[in-house]
């Protein structure tokens, strides 16, 4: 495990470090989005027995998304005449800021974190709930029925699925006794069996409850990021493309970026909270630094998200709500109460 501490290594005041880290995160998310769009195209192509992008840039069309991004930046920026101009312009930034702000409390190493808040996990829930406001703003300001319906569906879905997400994220909090992401990471180093191995991660800690919580979180996060099988807000066949129907050029790019950033963020939260984050799966793998493990775990989860998107059909609205309120919520509640009881008994 790398014990690299950026504050000590460069002897910087904490504010400078946070500004630098914010820059790194923005750059990383942009590069990740380009990479993820390319990956998504390739995965969809293989799922549908096609080749995907093959021309741009030479080998396997690797420069396709870069070319697409440049095209988006150079496109004309159109604002509908009857749109609410100020809200229309503001909305993409709110969505993007809400998604990106979460990255501040995600640890990429044992010491590599923007800021270790004592309410870390709650901060994540709070910021991601503001994304809904941005989406509703976008849908309403567009003055377009499809956009408005997309936004309404999106908001209804995100508000409902926040509950199972919150409840399943509370399990590791109960087991750790802290909301800080660093504390949650460190608590997964040691457990009942030998220290430093993968079975100390929270996903394996109290079988099968934490495993169920992880699965619940992962499925609910698909709804939170509006991805298949829960991509009703962006159902092309009925809604054109959801709340960002009227957006063009760079503002559309912001929504796109936020969407892919969100995919990474939910995966990163799952890997920190349930999969040990930057911890290596075994002590003899400690020579590989933490950020690499963190990225590896998150990217595997991102890959699963894409894999599911291109294999599963879309659910209906009533099925979506049925799954959330009648399956996920009771399961999450039972999980929560069982773990809470166990923690209380254990402490006694």
């Amino acid at each position, binding site marked *: 495990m790398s014990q690299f501490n950026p504050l000590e290594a460069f002897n910087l005041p904490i504010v400078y470090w946070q500004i630098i880290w914010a820059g790194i995160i923005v750059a990383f998310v942009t590069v990740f989005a380009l990479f993820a769009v390319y990956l998504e195209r390739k995965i969809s192509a293989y799922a549908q027995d096609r080749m995907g992008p093959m021309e741009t840039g030479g080998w396997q069309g690797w420069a396709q998304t870069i070319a697409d991004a440049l095209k988006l930046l150079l496109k004309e920026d159109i604002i509908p005449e009857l749109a609410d101009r100020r*809200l229309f312009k503001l909305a993409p930034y709110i969505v993007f800021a809400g998604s990106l702000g979460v990255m501040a409390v995600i640890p990429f190493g044992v010491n590599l974190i923007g800021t270790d808040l004592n309410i870390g996990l*709650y901060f994540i*829930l*709070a910021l991601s709930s503001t994304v809904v*406001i941005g989406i509703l703003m976008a849908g309403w300001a567009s003055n377009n029925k499809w956009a408005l319906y997309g936004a309404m569906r999106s908001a209804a879905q995100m*508000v409902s699925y926040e509950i199972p997400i919150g409840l399943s994220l509370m399990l590791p909090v109960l087991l750790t006794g802290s*909301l800080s992401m660093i504390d949650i990471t460190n608590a997964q180093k040691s457990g009942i069996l030998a220290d430093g191995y993968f079975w100390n991660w929270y996903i394996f800690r109290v079988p099968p409850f934490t495993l169920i919580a992880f699965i619940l979180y992962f499925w609910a996060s698909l709804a939170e990021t509006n991805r298949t099988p829960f991509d009703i807000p962006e159902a092309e066949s009925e809604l054109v493309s959801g709340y960002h129907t009227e957006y063009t050029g760079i503002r559309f790019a912001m929504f796109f970026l936020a969407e892919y950033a969100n995919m990474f963020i939910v995966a990163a939260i799952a890997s920190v909270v349930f999969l040990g984050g930057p911890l290596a799966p075994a002590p003899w793998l400690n020579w590989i630094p933490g950020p690499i493990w963190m990225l590896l775990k998150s990217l595997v989860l991102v890959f699963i998200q894409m894999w599911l998107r291109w294999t599963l059909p879309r659910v209906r609205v009533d099925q979506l709500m049925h799954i959330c309120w009648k399956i996920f919520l009771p399961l999450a509640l039972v999980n929560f109460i069982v773990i809470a009881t166990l923690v209380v008994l254990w402490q006694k």
Partner: protein
Amino acid sequence: MIKIAFIILSLISIFSALMVISRKNPVASVLWLVFHFFGIAGLYVLLGAHFLAAVQIIVYAGAIMVLFLFVVMMLNLNLVNNEKRGKIIGKSIGAVVSGLVLVLFTYSIRTTKWNELFFNQVTDQEWGTAVKLGSLLFSNWLVPFQIVGILLFAAVIGVVALMKRKITRKVENGIVITQEEDVA
């Protein structure tokens, strides 16, 4: 540093609160209210109440404001005309209520011992964390906390009772007919 942050945050809160009541478009009002809640959450952070700040954003900015937006968008309140606001009775009731609120605020502001309350002098920096707040809620304030829980539970049951519909299905000439009836 803290004083500058305090001034900025309170200016944001006051300005957005003024915008909430002065906008004609209800959607704009709701969105300014969201900004207002963010300002208030920032003030909570300055006071060291991090947990409360997060709860403020989750519950108010995240959930309740989304509900407000839903209602405003669904009801299409754009048609609120200004003529109705001119009624004398409504205006006089408003004047009395806001005058009383002003008296209340002036009284409480004048009687508060600001030197003792000033945020720099919060001795226990940990008082607003989840651990402290949780242990207080489950020891000193257990009964009020449970009563609030029961109140919310009653509200939930009320919603279910109001929204519950009786669905009857019958087959006539090979066609399934579904009928919905309000139970409440």
